[in-house]
Structure formats: C-alpha cells, structure tokens
C-alpha cells in the first residue's frame, strides 16, 4: 500500500471523526434548554381546589410484563381517565434500574407532570429522579420504594403497612404449623426493596415464636423457573422443613404448582405468602394452599394515580397529616417519615384469602 493511500486513509478517518465531534459539540452548545423549566403541558389551571385537566403522568413499573404491575398500571390509567388526564406506561423488559432510567429521561423530555415509579433498586434511580424533580415533576413511588432521602422528596404509596405485612405473614404461617418447626423464605430478587423490608419485620415477629426457626432465605428473582429451582434446592437441603413463606406472587405460585404435583410433601409442609387470587385459585380450591394474602394491585395503582395528580395540581403535599381524595377509594392521610421511609400513604390492610372468599376476587 503506497504512502498516498495510507495518508488518504488517515485523512478520511480523521475527517469522519472530526465530523462526529463537531456534531456532538454543535448539539451540546445549542442554547435550548429543556431542564429546569416548569412543565408546560397543556394543563389548564382550574379554580383552586380541583385537579388540573390534561395532566400527563408517567408510570414506570419494574418491567412492562409483570402481571401484578400491569394490573396496577391499569388502575392508574383508570384514575387519570377519571380526572381527564393521561398515563404513559414506560419501562424496560429486564428488572434492572438501568432499564428504567431511559423512561425517566423520556418523562423529563415529554414535560410530564408526575412520575409514578416502582423501583428495581433502592438508590440507583435517585440521581435521575432528582433531575426530574428539579424539572418540576412530582415524584411518587409505589409497590417498591426508592430510598433517596430528600433528593428528591417523594411520596411512597405503600400497599399495606410494611410492618403489618411482615408480621401477618409470620403469624399466618405460625397458626397453620402450630408455632414450631423449621421455616424458609422464598423471595424475589435479592435487591428488591419491598421484599427486603417485609423480611425485616418477619424476622422481628419470629422472635415471638421461639420454636420456629428461619433456616434459609432463597431468591427466585420473580422468575418461575428460577423459583422452582431454588425451591427444590431448599427442599433437598432441609428435608424437615415445615413452612415456606413466599412474599412474591411469582414465587408462591411456582411453589404451589410444585406442591400440587408432589402432594406427599403437604403432609408436613405448609405454604403461604403473597399471591394473586387469579393464579392461586386452583391451589386453594384443591387444598394445596390454605391461606395467603394480598391486596388489590389495581387499587394501588388507582391511589397512586390520584396521589400523583393531586400533587401535580397542588391539592396534596408531603406534609405529614395532610390529606387528599382518591376518587372512589376515599380520603387518604400522609404519614410521617419513619426509619428509612419518607412520607407515605398506606392503601389499607392486606386481605387474607382462603377457600371461603377466594371466588369473590377477580384479579
């Protein structure tokens, strides 16, 4: 290859590299700003005391496919439709914070009025959420909280009192196994904020039952195949296991399916946890699982939608003790921050499902 060719090649490469650099610089030095301005959505300021019309709320679930989240998002859509606003559901397909960040950015670019987010990670989302807050977007978290302190300030819509969930899970199981024996927890992802928070209270409640021992916590990552695998490992490592708590809808249904086809295990093993009635109906009816609990995720999303709209309209605030209306669900009061959790609102107590009432629920 001759000298000329080599120089031509270098020149061409340099030219293209320069072109890319120039384009990048041009983009960066353009003086248009999009952050830091108040949202200019087409909302009209109604008389104070009512929700603004035309609000745009971004719902960012853990991922776009989790059935629980889908029901919750639909609840949010229902709420905003009632209020004359609009919901955009945006997230990734993997349960990671990195998959949710582009959605937060999209919300900022779209000048949304509020973001309702279920965090895949307690803190990785905080920098982006903080940016959104500085752009004037109200931040609401639901299902799985984010721990960002006051950057940004946000409202957590808790599905039920965290302590109550943890304690009731253990007491439900204790009642069924007579308060003694080895038990294990089949959880979701090891980093999931909500499950970990409940597990803390579960362990606290266990202290009341000295004959019950938590021998292992395994993580099924909200994936049926992984949940089955870790369950089988659990059973093989602890043949004398008496009880399993699975505080995740995917985990409990995977475990129930396994017990359903290995009924001999039921003679000494009891399963409970948090499950969707639609997934668990068959197992309750044939006796594989006696009791489990949950709440209506649709209501959770509905409440979150109203909370977001109220905050964006100035009709609600994060001050403990203040309250706002949530459509057909009634009025809710903001609770003061406690250990690690900021201002929050609680949907209500969890419902215990069993053979008697399971057919009343359709979610």
């Amino acid at each position, binding site marked *: *290859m001759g000298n000329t*060719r080599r120089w031509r*090649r*270098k020149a*061409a*490469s340099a030219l*293209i*590299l320069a072109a*890319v*650099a120039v384009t*990048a*610089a041009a*983009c*960066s*030095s*353009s003086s*248009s*700003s*999009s*952050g830091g301005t108040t949202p200019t959505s087409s909302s009209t300021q109604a008389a104070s005391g009512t929700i603004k019309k035309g609000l745009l709320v971004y719902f960012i679930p853990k991922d*776009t496919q989790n059935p629980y989240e889908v029901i919750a998002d639909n609840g949010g859509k229902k709420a905003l439709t009632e209020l004359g606003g609009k919901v*955009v559901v*945006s*997230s*990734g*397909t*993997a349960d*990671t*914070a*990195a*998959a949710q*960040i*582009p*959605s937060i*950015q*999209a919300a*900022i*670019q*779209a000048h949304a009025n509020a973001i309702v987010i279920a965090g895949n*990670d*307690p*803190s*990785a989302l*905080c*920098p*982006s959420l*903080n*940016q959104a807050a500085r752009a004037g977007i109200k931040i609401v978290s639901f299902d799985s909280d984010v*721990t960002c302190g006051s950057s940004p300030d946000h409202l957590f819509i808790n599905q039920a009192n965290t302590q109550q969930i943890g304690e009731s899970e253990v007491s439900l199981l204790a009642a069924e196994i007579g308060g003694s024996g080895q038990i294990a927890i089949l959880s979701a*992802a*090891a*980093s999931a904020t909500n499950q970990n928070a409940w597990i803390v209270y579960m362990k606290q409640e266990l202290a009341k039952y000295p004959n019950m021992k938590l021998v292992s916590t395994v*993580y099924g990552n909200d994936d049926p195949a992984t949940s089955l695998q870790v369950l089988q490992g659990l059973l093989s490592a602890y043949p004398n296991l008496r009880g399993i708590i699975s505080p995740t809808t995917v985990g409990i249904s995977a475990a129930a399916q396994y017990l359903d086809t290995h009924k001999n295990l039921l003679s000494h093993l009891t399963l409970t946890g948090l499950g969707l009635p639609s997934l668990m109906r068959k197992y309750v009816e044939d006796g594989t699982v006696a009791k489990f609990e949950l709440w209506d995720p649709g209501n959770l999303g509905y409440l979150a939608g109203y909370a977001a709209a109220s905050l964006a309209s100035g009709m609600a605030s994060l001050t403990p003790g203040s309250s706002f209306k949530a459509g057909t669900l009634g009025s809710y009061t903001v609770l003061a921050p406690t250990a690690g959790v900021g201002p929050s609102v609680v949907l209500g107590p969890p419902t215990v499902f069993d053979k008697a009432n399971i057919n009343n629920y359709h979610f």
Partner: protein
Amino acid sequence: MTSEPATRAPQKREYAGTDTSRRPVWQRALRWETGLVVVLVATLIFGTARSSDFLNSTTGFYIGLNMGEIAIMALPLMLIVITGEIDLSVASMLGLSGCVMGQLHSQGWPIGLAMVAALVVGALGGALNGVLVARLGLPSIAVTIGTLTLFRGLAEIVLAPRTITDFPAWMTSIGVVPVPGTQLSYSTVIFLVLAVIFGVVLHATRAGRAIVATGLAPEAARFAGIRVNRVKFGLFVLSGVMCALAGILFTLKNASVSYDAGTGLELNVVAIVLFGGVSIFGGRGTVIGVVLSVVIFGTLQQVLTQMQVQPEVQNIIIGGLLLVSVVLPGGGEAVGRLRARLRTGPHLARAAGTRRLAPPSSSDSSMQSEEKK
C-alpha cells in the same frame, strides 16, 4: 517452530467468504461506515420530525449518559474481534469491578484507592482470559462464557445481597451533570478521548497493523514476526481494565452498586461492535464504525422510548438491524453465486465457489497439516 500452530484450534472461519476480494481494507471499511452515517442521519431526521426539540442538549446528554459505559466496553472488544476472538465477559467484569470498588469503599478505603483496586481486578480478570485464550489456545467463546459466569459469581460473593450506596457526592454527580463547558456526560467525554486514541493506534501505528494482521492471517503474521499470542493476551488485559473503568463509571453514575450490575449488557456490546462493521471473522473493523454504531443505538433508543414504543418492539428493531447488517453483504454474495450457478451450471459453479472460499494463506497451512494426520 513450536507444536502450537498445528494443534491450535483452526481459525474460526465459518462458511462464508465475504472478505476475499482484493480491495484494500480501508476502502471496504469506508463503504460500511458511509452506510452507517446514512442510517444515523436518517435516525436524527426521524427523531426531529417527531419532536421539534429532539436535537437539544439534554438529548445528547442522555444518549451519552445511557451509552457511555457500553461504548467504552465496545472499544477493546472491537480490537479483540478484529483478532478473531471474542470476549463475552465484559459486562460481568463491569459488575465485579463496581462491586469491588463499592465493597472496599464501604470498608473505609478512600475512593481513589478503591478505584485503583477495581482497575487491578479488571487487569487480573483480563489476564485470566488472556492466559486461557492466548497461552493455552482455548476457544475464546467458550472461555469467556466461563469467565462471564465466574466474574458474576465473584461479584455475588463479594457483595450479595447488599447494595452499596455510599459514594462521595462530588463523584456521583457525573450521573447528573455534564462536563463543564459542554453538554456531554463525563462518560461520553472519556469515551470520545479513548476513541480517538484507539483510532490512531488501530489505523496509524504498527501495533494497530499487527492487530489487524493477527486477525486476517495469524500464521502469516507469526511468520512476519508478530507475537500473536502476546497481542491477544495484551488485548484481553486491556479489555479487562477498560471494563473495570466502565464499571467504575457505571457505579458512580448510578450512585449505587449491587452484584447484578450490568447483567446482560454483553449482548448489547457485541451487537454494537458487529453493527459497527467489525467482521466476526476478524481482520476488519474501524473505530469510526463503532463510534457511529454507538451513536445510532443510543439515538434510536432515545427516539423510540420518547415515542413510547414498547421495549419489546425496540428489541425487535435492534435484532432486525443486526440481522440486516450482516444479511445485506451476505445476501449480495448469495445473489452473485446464484447468478454464477445459473450461468455456468451447478457443478462448475460449486468448484468456482469453493475456490473462492479458500481464505488467503492462514488456515490453509493448518488445514493441510491436519489433512496429513
């Protein structure tokens, strides 16, 4: 001559002969990059048409923020693929180094020292890959699947199930503020600087030519005095260090790290490198192509997310782009072959075709020595 060459696994030359024409490498490469520029411009026009203020500073910042670490990992991977190998452990090393940094910092190490430790871990991991692939001659795809699992497992041992969130605020601000004076994220600027360095090295130095020669014709390169094993070893170590750098930036950008940081990103990085015109057979690829590919992927993702296109559809689009990027040249060749076959009849066409398949020099000698066994 050591017994290595003959018993070394044969060149991973599959059943295609796209690179056997006699056009100079740079000319062929430039053709691909031009296509990429066209795609990029089309994407930008598409984005602007949808939203008039798409081309603003925030978009550029976000694209850079989201793609920065992936882009940094793509640079050494490009070199590795050019030499005919592959490194699938990139994302796991990103996770492991981030975990190491986080864990050490949480135990009181100053952040600077923790970062150095992370880079050292990256170098060690890369060295492991390098020893197994370059010294022992093991197939890189299998080895790096093994180290992908191993590194992720080590990250789990180091950190699971905790999440470290306590990092100095002035460092984590790289996740929200651009480099002063520009509107680009820190990771973007670092990437651009590295890209220029890589570009100069690859296209204008002897080391770069050695890398290309290693991929194009390893036997000939060896005979020409190029220490093929050393080149590959060095590239794997480089990849380890750069992935560790990406891990540091990723952790600081998110202001937190847990053991599953970056899971699954390796496929993105491979897709970007391949879409950038780097041939999976080795011997061809340019930095420009990879840079353009990074920008295209980042821009597409931004546009599609803003358009509220579901992530599932985005996946289909990425897969489709990747497919098209290899089918087009391959398809062109297939049409050519079909025409030849129709013209000269099947028997002669096949002979003509297989002659074209014989790659220049390299694998021939190893093939022949195998045949003699």
